[in-house]
């Protein structure tokens, strides 16, 4: 009986209509189980629900959500650039550049994001006369995520065997050509899942920017909570809003993985 639901038997046989049915039923079972646990938990709760109060502030929540999207989109792109640059810097033969990369990654990964945001905004940015907290927020978030992304990329690059690199050099490829034609096609696919995870983290980490009064999704939800004293009613939309942003990233990563499956 369990055989129908096992992926192994599906692979061996033809993926018939039974397989699709099994998949559907499996999903249903999982949703029912998880839903059941939460329904029970919320059923136990002694809590006076007041969704009406939240409805008045839906525009505020929505604006915060848009700000989070904007911040995350910019940070996704810049952190990728920063991460790539740092990964290449750490493999650079010129030592001052290499050590800069190492110091950057270790400093950022070894300290809490909260402290970084406070120091960047109230100390560094203040010293340079940058008063735009959104700009500072995006930069801090990109630097933070960039350190992790650089390590993901470096691990990918270093997974390519030394013998391949030597062969490439011996047929006269330049460093740039080696990255472009030997390393990138091989590591692109295996970078996708950890990068997708990191991107989802960026979206959630952007909530920490609320400590320098960047008016993003989490801060707006907390404000609505302060105005209405409806804690769960403010925070449940928050969870849904973040899921709406992180789920597409997971899906996109799945699609990209499939696309690059035959790249090598």
């Amino acid at each position, binding site marked *: 009986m369990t055989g129908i639901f096992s992926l192994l038997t599906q692979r061996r046989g033809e993926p018939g209509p039974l397989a699709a049915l099994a998949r559907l039923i499996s999903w249903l079972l999982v949703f029912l189980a998880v839903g059941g646990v939460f329904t029970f938990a919320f059923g136990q709760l002694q809590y006076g629900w007041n969704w009406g109060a939240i409805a008045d502030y839906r525009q505020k929540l929505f604006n915060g959500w848009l700000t989070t999207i904007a911040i995350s989109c910019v940070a996704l792109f810049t952190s990728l650039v920063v991460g790539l640059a740092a990964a290449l810097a750490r493999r650079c033969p010129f030592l001052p550049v290499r050590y800069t990369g190492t110091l950057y990654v270790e400093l950022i990964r070894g300290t809490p994001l909260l402290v970084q945001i406070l120091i960047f905004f109230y100390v560094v940015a203040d010293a340079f006369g940058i*008063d735009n907290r959104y700009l500072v927020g995006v930069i801090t978030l990109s630097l933070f995520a960039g350190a992790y992304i650089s390590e993901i990329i470096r691990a990918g690059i270093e997974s390519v065997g030394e013998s391949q690199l030597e062969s490439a050099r011996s047929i006269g490829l330049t460093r740039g050509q080696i990255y472009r034609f030997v390393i990138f096609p091989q590591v692109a696919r295996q970078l996708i899942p950890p990068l997708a995870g990191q991107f989802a983290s960026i979206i959630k980490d952007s909530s920490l920017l609320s400590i320098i*009064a960047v008016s993003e999704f989490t801060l707006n939800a907390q404000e609505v909570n302060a105005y209405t004293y409806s804690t769960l009613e403010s925070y449940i939309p928050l969870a849904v809003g973040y899921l709406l942003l992180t789920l597409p990233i997971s899906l996109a990563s799945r699609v990209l993985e499939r696309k690059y499956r035959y790249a090598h």
Partner: protein
Amino acid sequence: MKRLMTRIGVIGLFVCCLTAAIAAAGQEPLRVGMELAYPPFEMTDKSGSPSGISVDLAHDLGKALGRPVKIENMAFDGLIPALKTGKIDLIISSMTATEERARSIDFSEPYLQTGLCLLLKKDSPAATIGDLDRPGRTVAVKKGTTGHLYAAKNLKKARLLVLDKESAAVLEVVQGKADAFIYDQMSVYQNWQRNRATTRAILAPFQKESWAIGIRKGNEQLRRQINDFIRSYRSSGGFDRLGDRYMKEMKQEFKRLGYPFFL
């Protein structure tokens, strides 16, 4: 016969257990919720245990009610939900008794009168809260405080900066990023003392408020007991003693500046 004796014994034992349980229920600890991040009212001493005016007040209240006191430290935002869901029995956390809050919990009689006032950047020309409600002005508030609620409701033209931490809000004013920070008299006074070169204070409150003990709705008996306690505590000089113990200098300074002291 022997069996009957055993039965009586068992029943006797059961009754004993029951009375013991009831007696213990009377000794059930009074769980008092507060955020230990507002010295000298709620803070931790050097060894990390709760200390401050609210903590002493809670213990004195416990003594008067004959119940041991357990201090539960939690974020200010979470206090009302915790009280509503029965995780704590009381809130003593420098909480202002507002109408909005009174809709979801009950309050005792006020035990302290204070008010919202302003910490301004040194070169700000503002003299009243009204001067700040103009386009181009930036006002910092701490999230979830009465200052935040006041500003959200009354300051329509100024830009509002909502911050998590009091220290960040003060920094905004010190660095001139915000024109003013709206907070209570005591905090404004302390932050002004610490940053006299970059800030000034208007300590006259533009909105009076009173702090009270939060109680779950429908706990009339407990509320009466607490109100009795507050009255007798005041007449026996308990609050004055707490003020002298924790904020002696400030008390003298308020006297010198001509503001009535709040505790």
